[in-house]
């Protein structure tokens, strides 16, 4: 048996080509695959990648190139250099890298591990896995988990929006009890309101100098709008305030906030100022229970977190290489009919 891989991802292929593959029905494609002389097969399909792993008898004359041709036929378009085609050891290492988040758009993200797992179960339910692919995918999940516990690859924020929301949750805990007040209508403010919405913030209120625009954005993110003159009063009810207006002078100063704090019974208030020039006066950060993070504070933290990820990526790469080599040795031994044990090097794993 040979392990084959044909696939494309966000780095190698343009979106239209990936979309052609995204619409394929995995189960149907796998059955098709079997009728064409391949043995086991698993499809990993996410927004950023489409990969087909398959096994073919050694003397069947079917290699990664043939697998790619099969996929091209399904997609109805040639891949050319947009696809990668790998066999055996290279394919194993690639799968382990994918499961570890090393090949992801945001390195170290954790969603991919669940996606690999789901992909494997879809193939298993379709009866398209056997001994080799079962062990291969279980191993990939194990390596992906291990990389995340042993390295700092998934630690720390990766974007300003996710960091701002993470910090807010370090102040308030569960964001489901939190209301957010958005001042202004910049693109970043909208990204943040979407992030807040996805973390199930209780309420999103928009205030903007243009009342129509405020209502428009409120409709987009299922929030409500308050007239611009009333935002100081809305401060008392908000927990997270995102400021992104084009005002040339600060619109929130410590007097405004002190007045709002009177009605808050000591509950914290978290400001995120992403405007330039600043909308929120620096003196606000000096008040009790009030925290102000400016764009440059957030950017500095993200930059540092990404820098420390670089180190983790190297460490993760070593784990992946070691585990991939170990699997390949086992794979060879099974092919040669003198199977060695795969678990012997896992002492201390749990």
């Amino acid at each position: 048996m040979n392990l084959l891989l044909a696939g494309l991802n966000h780095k190698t292929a343009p979106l239209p080509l990936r979309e052609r593959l995204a619409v394929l029905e995995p189960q149907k494609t796998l059955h098709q695959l079997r009728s064409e002389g391949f043995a086991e097969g698993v499809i990993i399909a996410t927004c950023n990648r489409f990969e087909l792993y398959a096994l073919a008898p050694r003397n069947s004359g079917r290699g990664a190139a043939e697998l790619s041709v099969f996929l091209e036929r399904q997609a109805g378009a040639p891949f050319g250099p947009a696809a990668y085609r790998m066999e055996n050891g290279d394919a194993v290492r690639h799968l382990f890298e994918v499961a570890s988040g090393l090949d992801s758009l945001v390195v170290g993200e954790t969603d991919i591990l669940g996606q690999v797992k789901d992909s494997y179960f879809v193939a298993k339910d379709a009866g398209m896995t056997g001994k080799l692919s079962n062990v291969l995918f279980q191993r990939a999940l194990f390596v992906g988990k291990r990389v995340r516990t042993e390295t700092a690859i998934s630690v720390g924020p990766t974007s300003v929006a996710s960091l701002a929301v993470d910090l807010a949750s370090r102040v308030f805990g569960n964001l489901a009890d939190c209301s957010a007040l958005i001042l202004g209508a910049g693109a970043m403010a909208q990204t943040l309101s979407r992030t807040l919405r996805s973390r199930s913030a209780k309420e999103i209120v928009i205030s903007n100098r243009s009342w129509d625009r405020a209502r428009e954005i409120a409709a987009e993110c299922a929030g409500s709008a308050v007239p611009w003159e009333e935002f100081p009063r809305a401060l008392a009810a908000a927990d997270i305030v995102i400021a992104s207006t084009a005002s040339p002078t600060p619109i929130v100063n410590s007097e405004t906030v002190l007045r709002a704090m009177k009605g808050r019974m000591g509950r914290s208030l978290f400001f995120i100022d992403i405007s330039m020039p600043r909308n929120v006066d620096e003196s606000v950060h000096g008040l009790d229970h009030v925290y102000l993070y400016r764009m440059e504070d957030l950017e500095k933290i993200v930059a540092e977190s990404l820098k420390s990820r670089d180190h983790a990526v190297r460490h993760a790469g070593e784990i992946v290489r070691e585990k991939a080599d170990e699997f390949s040795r086992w794979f060879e031994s099974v092919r040669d009919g003198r199977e060695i044990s795969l678990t012997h090097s896992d002492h201390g794993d749990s």
Partner: protein
Amino acid sequence: MELALAKAAFAFYAAAMALAFLYLFYKDDKWSLWMLRLMGVGVLLQSASFGFRMHSFWLIPENRYFLPINSFFGALSYLSLAVAAVFYFVEGRHRLGILGAFVLPWPVIGLGSALIWADPKTSGLVPALQSYWINIHPVVLMTSYAAFGNAFGVGLALLVQEHQIKSRKPSELCYRLPSIEELDDLNYHIIAAAWPVLTVGIIMGGVWAYNAWGRFWGWDPKETWALITALIYAGYLHMRYVGRLRGKKAIYVSMVGFASVVFTFLGVNFLSGLHAYLSGGA
């Protein structure tokens, strides 16, 4: 046997505390899991040790049916057992492993100082203490002290978290500690649960005093300081409840309350006449 078990329990608490500190700096849930396990073993060992103490206490005829908490050793060891058990309960339920580093130093210091400075010998109870109240009044009070010790740890964690976020340079620790508002609530809930226990304990002391000496209250330093402690925490609860005081300042008030707990338990013994029962100190 009692001492050997207490020393073993101390070793387990100390190891659990070390793991709690490791967990503070390295993200690996196995530290927190092992911390909880070691704590569990420590609590069992110390309970067994306390069992042996009760047994040797029992052998002195006039002590029968009374708890061996009339000496520094007995009281400190009961107190550290209670702190450890309360923490084990809170941690087991909330899985906030990170708080171990803030709470576990207390049972370690408590049991450690009992082992180093206090005399573990059991002796006969003086007649004034031969009352069923000895099983209730001090035990109830020390249980509230144990809860206040846990609240103090939670308060420390809140100050650390507040500082992390105010600094604008949050470290890894910031993402692992519970949020400011959660810590604030937890601190409040523990104190709100412990305060009635403290108050009931003090009133029981009054009832015992009335039975023994015919008067409810004598302004003995221990009584006075216990009352001061209760008033400080009552002030905290009032201000917190009315909503005027939260966060850092509230924590400072609760910490003054805990300082008063420590002084009531230890310091007052050098001043108190009536409550100078605790024997075998340094």
